[in-house]
């Protein structure tokens, strides 16, 4: 037996929308902040999925994305470290195709069925960049989904699989390309999307002895809203069988897209429902899941709906363009060039910087960050235990709004955060509106990319106002 035991998602706080000056689209789409990428969003979705769960259980992590920050260097290992998972787990990046999310899910299911793992975390995350003001930019969204695939505690059991592989150059990016490229729309849709999805889904039904009417919800990939409606109809689904694709609210989140729609469908908490997740890209994967009675218990994460409902529309397209580095501006303040970080120091400090471990003194119980060899309270030497602070709620004790620090999001909010569980950290804030930064503000920690120097993506934690469903 194998299936989904937990699900979670992450959608960045910011959106482009009708109110955004310079953005000419009637709907909204989600956009990653300047310090977010596929890895940071995957960590956020992983946290959402693992809330209230023992992280030591996880035996493997698969990361699916077409936008991994590194071409050579695994990202799953960064995500596993940030999520504070065990060392003896298998990890892999599954990349290069929009189908990678369902491929990762299938691989995790196979591992669990084969008995090589009991619990595998799958995270799919994308922030694909369309050319400024183009169709791909308008229809895309940024986001991530996460599932734990398990052999117990299952809320949605695996219920069939079918796949088609066909090499097709309809949407692509080569090494060095910044923006998504695509071939003529009519060819790509008719000979690509429509033909291949029809083949994949009918193949699934034939194989499993099922038909369209057996499906409760269809989590269907599509590049845009219009094609999505057409496709579902052509495939024979009724409107109430189709999971809302969230165009006009979130957008096409690439590899994460069908997985986020699946997570969304799971939020209905209805047992004994057949859910189909259908991806597309060099073929198609169709994955069936049947919800179990376990699904009735409420999850503890925000998932898709919670993150959707806690968004903020950007005032200006210019801000977004600066975040994406497609609007090159003179730096607001003259600062020295950032130096490349020392990889040796990054490695040495991985527990405190990436796992965000503080230390709790075994003698006096004082929580301190970063971990100290000599206790800050009782001066006992080398007698402390690590304590994970990344998932602990905090409160702003004091702050500054800095206009000189040379950040993309001026002014830089610098905060002193006290954790509820003890411990204090001086950190940057992000995803904040200037007027909400106050003493006493409730914050949580979010894994973000500080900068890229010498090709090294340097990640660390920042404080964000607590995301809550409206």
């Amino acid at each position, binding site marked *: 037996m194998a299936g989904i035991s937990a699900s979670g998602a992450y959608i960045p706080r910011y959106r482009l929308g009708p109110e955004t000056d310079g953005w000419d689209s009637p709907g909204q789409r989600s956009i990653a902040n300047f310090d977010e990428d596929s890895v940071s969003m995957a960590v956020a979705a992983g946290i959402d999925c693992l809330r209230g769960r023992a992280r030591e259980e996880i035996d493997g992590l698969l990361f699916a994305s077409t936008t991994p920050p590194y071409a050579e260097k695994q990202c799953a290992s960064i995500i596993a470290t940030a999520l504070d998972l065990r060392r003896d787990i298998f990890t892999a990046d599954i990349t290069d195709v929009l189908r990678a999310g369902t491929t990762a899910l299938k691989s995790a299911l196979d591992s669990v069925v084969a008995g090589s793992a009991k619990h595998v975390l799958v995270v799919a995350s994308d922030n694909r960049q369309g050319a400024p003001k183009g169709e791909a930019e308008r229809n895309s969204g940024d986001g991530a989904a996460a599932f734990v695939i398990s052999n117990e505690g299952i809320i949605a059991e695996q219920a069939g699989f079918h796949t088609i592989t066909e090499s097709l150059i309809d949407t692509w990016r080569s090494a060095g390309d910044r923006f998504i490229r695509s071939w003529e729309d009519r060819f790509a849709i008719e000979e690509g999307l429509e033909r291949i999805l029809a083949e994949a889904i009918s193949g699934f039904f034939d194989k499993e002895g099922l038909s369209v009417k057996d499906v409760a919800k269809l989590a269907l990939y599509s590049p845009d809203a219009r094609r999505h409606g057409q496709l579902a109809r052509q495939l024979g689904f009724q409107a109430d069988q189709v999971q809302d694709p969230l165009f006009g609210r979130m957008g096409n989140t690439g590899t994460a897209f069908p997985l986020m729609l699946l997570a969304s469908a799971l939020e209905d908490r209805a047992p004994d429902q057949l859910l189909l997740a259908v991806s597309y890209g060099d073929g198609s994967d169709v994955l069936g899941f049947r919800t179990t009675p376990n699904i009735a218990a409420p999850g503890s994460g925000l998932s898709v709906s919670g993150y959707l409902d806690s968004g903020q529309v950007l005032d200006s397209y210019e801000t977004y363009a600066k975040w994406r580095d497609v609007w090159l501006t003179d730096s607001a303040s003259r600062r020295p060039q950032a130096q490349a970080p020392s990889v040796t120091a990054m490695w040495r400090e991985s527990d405190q910087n990436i796992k965000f471990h503080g230390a709790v003194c075994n003698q006096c119980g004082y929580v301190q*960050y970063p971990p100290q060899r000599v206790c800050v309270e009782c001066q006992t030497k080398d007698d402390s235990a690590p304590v994970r602070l990344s998932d602990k709620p905090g409160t702003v004790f*004091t702050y*500054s*709004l800095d*206009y000189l*620090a040379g950040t993309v999001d001026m002014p830089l909010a610098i905060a002193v955060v*006290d954790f509820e569980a003890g411990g204090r950290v001086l950190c940057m804030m992000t995803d904040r509106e200037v007027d909400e930064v106050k*003493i006493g503000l409730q914050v949580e920690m979010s894994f973000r990319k500080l900068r890229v120097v010498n090709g090294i993506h340097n990640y660390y934690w920042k404080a964000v106002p607590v995301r809550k469903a409206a």
Partner: protein
Amino acid sequence: MSGIKDRVAVIGMGCSKFGERWDSSSSDLIVEAAYEAFEDAGIEGKDVQAAWLGTVGSFRTGQPLAAALKLDYIPITRVENACATATDAFRNACYAVAAGIYDIVLAVGVEKLKDSGFSGLAVAEPAGADVNPPVPPPSQFALAATRYFHQYDIPYEEGKMTLAQIAAKNHHNGTMSPKAHFQREVSADQVANAPMVAWPLGLFDCCGVSDGAAAAIITTPEIAKTFRDDYILVKGLGLSVGAFGIMRNDWDFTHFPESVRASQAAYQEAGISDPRQEIDLAMVHDCFTITELIIYEDLGFSPRGRASDDVAAGTFSLEGELPVNTDGGLKCFGHPIGASGIRMIYEVYKQLQGKAEKRQLKDPTLGLTHNLGGRPGSFTCSVALFGTRD
């Protein structure tokens, strides 16, 4: 422990013009300050038996001091201790004389900040893992200002105006300091309405970033008598270094323990029990207006949370009960980091000798200097006390 009180004397001091010294190198600034000190003491470079060079980033060793002044193979030590650098160079020089090792020594502080091409301080930190947030100095102290206003329930506008009055006072004093970087009156309204640098601190809440150097000649009181009648005695030296950073949840950000400890150590050496009554003038580390406000309380000049009352009463103005930063302070005299401590001593020295020109206070006999370096939670603080001879 016998302490430093009355065991060493200052017989000569010099201070370069502070400011944007585009035309002068660090070595030029050293020559300018040191030769004024030599002349003031009536000695020559060859009379110096040992020297200490304080600089944060302009030199890596003590050797450039020998090179600039052509000192004759004497021992020279470079001292670096954040904004307390110059005072710590001075302190080490004092101890060498008090220990009886040398008769006449030189302490110099120098900094050349304006060659960087950046506004503000642009000191490169070692790279490391490079995850610490960029917290420029204005923000470090803005964290204290935000919390100070909150803790004492001070409305933003009122707090801004208190800070603005401190800047306006120092600007006024600066107009009477020919060597100061800024010598122009600025009104409290102008300060309060200046562009924001690190909320709630605006441009005029921040001190100047300057080039400069200052120098002191130190000897024993016995030898001092053979040079001049109006030598100045060191009465106390305190240095305190914070270890706890911001790792403690119980630290309030509205007092700086390093300032409290360093001043208490110096007061104890000097035998001071009521600093507000006994001290005639104080040169304190007003890197930002909020810093000066908190220092009033840390040094025991004002009760906790009440410093703004004293600001409003003019207690710390030139005509007030306890004049602070009579030469314009870091705010207007400027802040070449490694030079500032000895620049402060220079002003106290001149005031105690009655040579402070338009700024001259009436018969001061005891003066204080205070430097605070590093960042809130992990400061290095020096306090020094100076008195006239009996």
